[in-house]
C-alpha cells in the first residue's frame, strides 16, 4: 500500500504558553518549542504500522518553509520512507482550501492508495483532509481511531463519536482519512534515529513543479483570512489563590468543606 501522510510543524502547546505579540499580528514566536502536530504523529505511526503489515511505502509531506524539513526528517527517523517539502513564497497565507489545493497537486504526482492527515492542527480547523478528499473525489472519513486493511481494495475504519462510542465503516480505496489521537502509541524517536536520516535529500516542490497557478493559493486565493490574534476578556475567571503553599491549602480546604468536596 502506498501511503501519503500530510504533516505540519506547529508550536508545541504542551511545552509553551502561547502569548499574543504587542500589535496582535502574530503570536510571540521567539523561544517557542516546535514539534510535529500531535495528531499527525499518530497518523505517521499508523501509516508505518500498516506498511509493516501489508507492505508498500510511507511518504510524509508538509507545506511550509525550510524549517518544516525538521519535522519531515523526524517522521522519517520514525520510519517513513520518503519526505517531500512543498514550499513556495506563493503558498504563504493559504487557507484550508489553498493547502488542500497544494496537497492535491502533490497527490496527483504519485500513485497513492491511502492518504492520512491529522484530525486537526494548531488552528483547530480540522479541514484539510475533508477538502482534499472532495477535490480528489475520493471517499473520506474524519476522526478515525481504528483502521484495519481488509484487502487491496478496501479498509475498515472506526470513527470516534460522542460518549466513547465508535462508528464503523467499510471504505473503498483510495481514500483520505483524518486521524484522531489515541489510535495507537507512537514510537519514540531518538537522536540516533534522526542522525541516521540527516543526510537524506528531501525534494522541494513549488508552484512550477506542481503546476499550480500562484493566485489560486496563498493569500490571494484565500477566502478566509486571519486578521489578528487577541486574548478575549472572558468574565472574571477563577479567583486565584495566592500565598505560601500552606496558606493556599488552608483556603482551598475551606472551599472544599463548604462545597462538599471532602467526604
Amino acid at each position: 500500500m502506498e501511503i501519503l501522510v500530510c504533516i505540519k510543524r506547529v508550536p508545541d502547546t504542551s511545552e509553551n504558553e502561547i502569548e499574543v505579540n504587542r500589535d496582535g499580528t502574530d503570536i510571540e514566536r521567539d523561544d517557542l518549542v516546535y514539534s510535529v502536530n500531535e495528531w499527525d504523529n499518530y497518523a505517521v505511526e499508523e501509516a508505518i504500522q500498516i506498511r509493516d503489515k501489508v507492505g508498500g511505502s510511507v511518504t510524509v509531506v508538509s507545506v511550509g518553509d525550510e524549517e518544516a524539513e525538521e519535522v519531515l526528517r523526524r517522521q522519517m527517523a520514525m520510519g517513513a520512507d520518503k519526505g517531500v517539502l512543498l514550499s513556495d513564497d506563493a503558498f504563504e497565507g493559504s487557507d484550508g482550501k489553498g493547502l488542500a489545493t497544494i496537497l492535491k497537486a502533490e497527490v496527483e504526482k504519485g500513485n497513492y492508495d491511502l492518504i492520512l492527515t491529522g484530525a486537526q492542527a494548531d488552528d483547530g480547523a480540522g479541514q484539510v483532509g475533508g477538502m482534499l478528499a472532495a477535490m480528489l473525489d475520493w471517499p473520506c472519513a474524519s476522526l478515525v481511531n481504528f483502521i484495519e486493511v481488509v484487502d487491496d481494495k478496501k479498509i475498515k475504519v472506526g470513527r470516534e463519536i460522542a460518549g466513547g462510542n465508535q462508528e464503523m465503516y467499510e471504505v473503498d480505496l483510495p481514500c483520505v482519512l483524518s486521524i484522531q489521537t489515541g489510535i495507537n502509541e507512537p514510537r519514540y524517536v531518538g537522536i540516533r534515529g534522526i542522525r541516521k536520516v540527516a543526510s537524506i535529500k528531501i525534494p522541494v516542490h513549488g508552484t512550477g513543479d506542481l503546476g499550480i497557478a500562484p493566485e489560486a493559493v496563498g493569500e490571494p486565493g484565500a477566502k478566509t483570512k486571519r486578521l489578528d490574534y487577541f486574548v478575549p476578556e472572558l468574565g472574571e475567571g477563577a479567583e486565584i489563590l495566592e500565598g505560601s503553599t500552606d496558606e493556599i491549602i488552608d483556603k482551598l480546604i475551606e472551599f472544599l468543606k463548604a462545597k462538599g468536596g471532602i467526604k
Partner: protein
Amino acid sequence: MARQVFAYIIHKDGIADDTALEMIAAAGKIDPDASVTAVVAGAGSELASVCNEVASSFAEVWKIDNQALAYVNAEMLRPMLVRILPERGIVLIPHDHFGMDLAPGLSIKLDAAYLPDAVDFEGIDEGKLKAVREEHTGQVSTHVLSDISEGAVITIRPGSFKAEESKSSEGNVVDKTAEAMEGGLLGGARRFLEIVEAEVGDVDITKSDILVSVGRGIEDEDNMEIVFDLAEAMGGDVSCSRPIVDAKWLEKSRQVGTSGQTVKPKVYMALGISGAFQHVGSLKGSPFVIAINKNPRAPIFQVADVGIVDDILDFIPELTDRINDLKSA
C-alpha cells in the same frame, strides 16, 4: 431579498440536538434580517418528529427522507445537500464529530468559503463576515474575515451561541427528498457497518459527586498514584482528560469530554488540565470547579471558580497529606 441561511439539524432518537436553537442565534448574529431554514435528514417517523419539533422555531424546514439516511452517513448526505442548496447560501453546521465529517468537503463541492469552529460573529462588511475563532487549544483567539459573497459553509462551536427562547413559529415543512435524490444515491464508497458502544468501566464517573480529574500535567504514568491518593482522601473518583486516555494510563470510561463522558459532579478538581472546549463543555450542572495548573494562561482558569497556579506534582501530595491530617484529627 433577505440573506438565506440554512441550519443543518443534528438529531438522535427523534429529538433535535441543542445546537438547533443555537444556530438560530448564530444566524441572527451573522445577519439579523436573515431568513433561516432548517435542513433535516433522516428516515421515517423519527425524522417526522424532528421536523415537527424544529418547525416550532424555524420559519421553514427542509426534509430529506430516505431509508439510506436512517443512520446519517455524511458521505451520502453531502451530494444530496449539494443538489438542494441554492448558490450563495450560507450553511451552518455544528462543529461536532458529524459536522467535522460533513462540512469541509461540502464547502469544496459548493465552491463556498469555509469558516470552521466559529465561536462568535461581529457583522458583515462588504460581503465579508468577521468571526471569532480560537487557536492553540484555546490559549489565543483570532478574528477572521471570510468572503461569504459566493456562499459559505460555517461550522458553529456547540455551546458558544446562547439559544434564544424559541420564538414560536409555525414553520412550513418542505419535502426536498425528490430533488435531493435526483441522479441517484451517491457516497456508496463509504458504507456504514455498525456502532461499537463504549466499554463500561469499573467506575461510573457520571454518578460521582466529587471528581478528581487529571490531565497532561501529570507528565508520567508513575505519577498517577498521587491523583488516586487525593481522590481517596477527598472521597471522590478519578476522571481524566483526553491525553491520559490516549496514553492508555486510564480507561476511556473515565474520560470527561465530548468524545467521553458528560459529568455533573458537585465538585470538580481539574489537575494539570488545560481546559479545551471539548473537555469543559462536558461539565454540566454547574459544579464548583477548582483548577490547578502551572500555566497561568491555561483556558481552564476561565471556567474555574478557584484557581491555583502551581505544579500539580508538588501541590497534590501536600494537599492530600493535609486532608488526611484533618480527617484523622
